[in-house]
């Protein structure tokens, strides 16, 4: 994997939002640092899972990569080109190869357009094929995502949540992009449908060799689909590794606590296993803690943690972790069989 050139390279990406506006905003400007110094790479055809709790900046990271918002600092390279420096034409070309799947299947489809119009819109915008060819592609896509191609003239409100998400997936694949950013694509669906949609995404990946940046707040969902997993906390990346290592030997105490919170479908293990319960709420990103951002809730925090921000260092080949005292956490093998 390391030999290949990355499809997407994110370097020291930061995104701040102004928290107050008004007459004196310039002087007392406060900002929410939603994403802070995040770096990672995605290789062609792989899936990087990005997890973290609500408000940790996962979605902002995805939106900034797509340049739906502009980054405050840092660089995003897509196929070696700096996304932030692209002009309109280059940006349009880039968007042909990078698509987005949204979390809310109800808000992400225009209620006044038919399914055919929605799925063919990317092709219309990029002038792909004739109208008949586009409609043929739409029918194929609908068939591939498990919808009835006969429904091409129906409207989004005539479909269920799972079906709508399939429409969103068909739209994202219309141009055969190289990378799709999936922003919590299954978290709005109920559990039985989640599995189907995840399997669909996996099938499509095998078929077209698309890379995914898969954003989620649920480790079990991410585990199912990812090659590598990155964990974010309060705008910072705390750990990244291939998923087997991360799940077997999480180094960062935050990752360890997240893993220990995943329910086990076996009452005996569930009762006996160790759980790390974090105290309190995540601190406000308006006023992030000094040093390591996790030290206020960390079970192993020491004096150093509140003063010095830990480096994002390679604890093992391909396994990065941002903790002064990172070490593998002995999760009981009985609870996890890989």
């Amino acid at each position: 994997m390391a030999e290949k050139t990355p499809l997407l390279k994110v370097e020291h990406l930061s995104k701040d939002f102004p928290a107050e506006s008004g007459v004196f905003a310039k002087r007392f400007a406060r900002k929410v640092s939603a994403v802070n110094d995040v770096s990672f790479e995605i290789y062609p055809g792989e899936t990087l899972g990005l997890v973290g709790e609500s408000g940790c900046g996962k979605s902002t990271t995805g939106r900034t990569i797509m340049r739906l918002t502009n980054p405050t600092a840092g660089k995003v390279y897509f196929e070696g080109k700096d996304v932030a420096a692209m002009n309109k034409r280059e940006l349009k070309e880039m968007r042909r190869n990078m698509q987005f799947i949204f979390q809310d299947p109800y808000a992400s489809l225009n209620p006044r357009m038919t399914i055919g119009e929605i799925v063919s819109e990317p092709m219309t915008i990029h002038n792909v094929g004739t109208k008949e060819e586009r409609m043929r592609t739409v029918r194929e896509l609908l068939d591939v995502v498990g919808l009835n191609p006969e429904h091409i003239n129906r409207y989004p409100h005539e479909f269920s949540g799972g079906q709508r998400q399939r429409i969103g997936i068909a739209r994202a694949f219309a141009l055969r992009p190289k990378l799709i950013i999936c922003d919590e694509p299954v978290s709005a669906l109920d559990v039985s449908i989640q599995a189907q949609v995840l399997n669909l995404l996996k099938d499509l990946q095998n078929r077209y060799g698309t890379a995914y940046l898969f954003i989620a707040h649920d480790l079990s969902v991410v585990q199912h689909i990812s090659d590598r997993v990155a964990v974010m906390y309060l705008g910072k990346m705390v750990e990244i590794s291939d998923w087997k290592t991360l799940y077997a030997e999480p180094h960062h105490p935050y990752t360890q606590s997240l893993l220990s919170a995943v329910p086990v479908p076996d009452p005996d293990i569930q009762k006996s296993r160790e759980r790390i319960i974090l105290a309190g709420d995540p601190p406000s990103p308006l006023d992030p803690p000094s040093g390591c951002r996790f030290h206020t809730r960390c079970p192993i925090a020491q004096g150093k943690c509140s003063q010095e921000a830990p480096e994002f260092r390679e604890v093992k080949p391909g396994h990065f972790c941002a903790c002064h005292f990172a070490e593998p956490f002995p999760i009981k093998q009985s609870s996890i069989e890989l």
Partner: protein
Amino acid sequence: MQYPDLIQPDGEAAAVEAHAVEVSEGASRTLWGDAFKRLRKNKLAIIAVVWIVFVALVAITADLWAPQLLGSPTAADTTAMATSSLLPPSLEHPFGTDVTGRDILVRVIYGARISLTVGLVATAISTVIGLVMGAIAAYYGGIFDTIIMRLADIFLAFPYVLFVLCLIAALGQSITNVFIAIGILGWPSIARVFRSAILSVKENDYVDAARAMGASDVRIIVRHIFPNSVASIVVYATMNIGSAILSEAAISFLGMGVQPPNPSWGIMIQDGQAYLMNAPWLMIMPGLAILSTVLAFTLLGDGLRDALDVKMKDA
């Protein structure tokens, strides 16, 4: 055992959802089609539509039959004045006659022409200005938003009738200028409604989705934002027709609108006020015409609002 996991990898087998939750069969319907269906169930709105269509047809075709049947709406001939002045409603003159012996019904019918025209033309002017202003304010935001919305606030802060009268005085007194004055003064409320509609539509993921696909600003506005915010404008414009009719009646009543001997509902009420005691039909008939027509537009607007509300899907 699989890692704690709610997802069975063999979930394929469970792929029953896609077609199981099949939507009710039948032809695909558009949201406008749905809205029309819902509107048809609203009795008051249907009565309103019927009334508006009736008034419009009568007003449009008036030249073909009304003068022959009921006499000229404007001519005041001395013989008529002597014989049929201030007659109460009867078979021959269903609404009675005025002081110069003209039939009230025919004057109400010709007055409808003025009222409906002023309602439509003034609302069209307000809507065009309001849409452009509202769209600029909402889509581009920042300084555009501030300037346009403060301008709208200033317009709304003036006493309305006084403002219209001043504008007509400045433009010169003619019926066209009445349309223009009422139209120009109507834009701030439409701009506000449209602005807030765009602002809420803009937040939707499908606008971001279109941007992520590489759609241009124009495409986003025309294909995504406009179709989803136009419903509130349709509702508001419908109600605005009613208030434009009222404004014209008020202006004409005050003597700055339609000039005698041309009939207008406002002028007829003004003419009638001197005879309120001995010939009340002079005021009542045009008053009823104003009331029923304005009410009809308001009820239609109400019905449209309910019908276009996507949340009331199954009503």
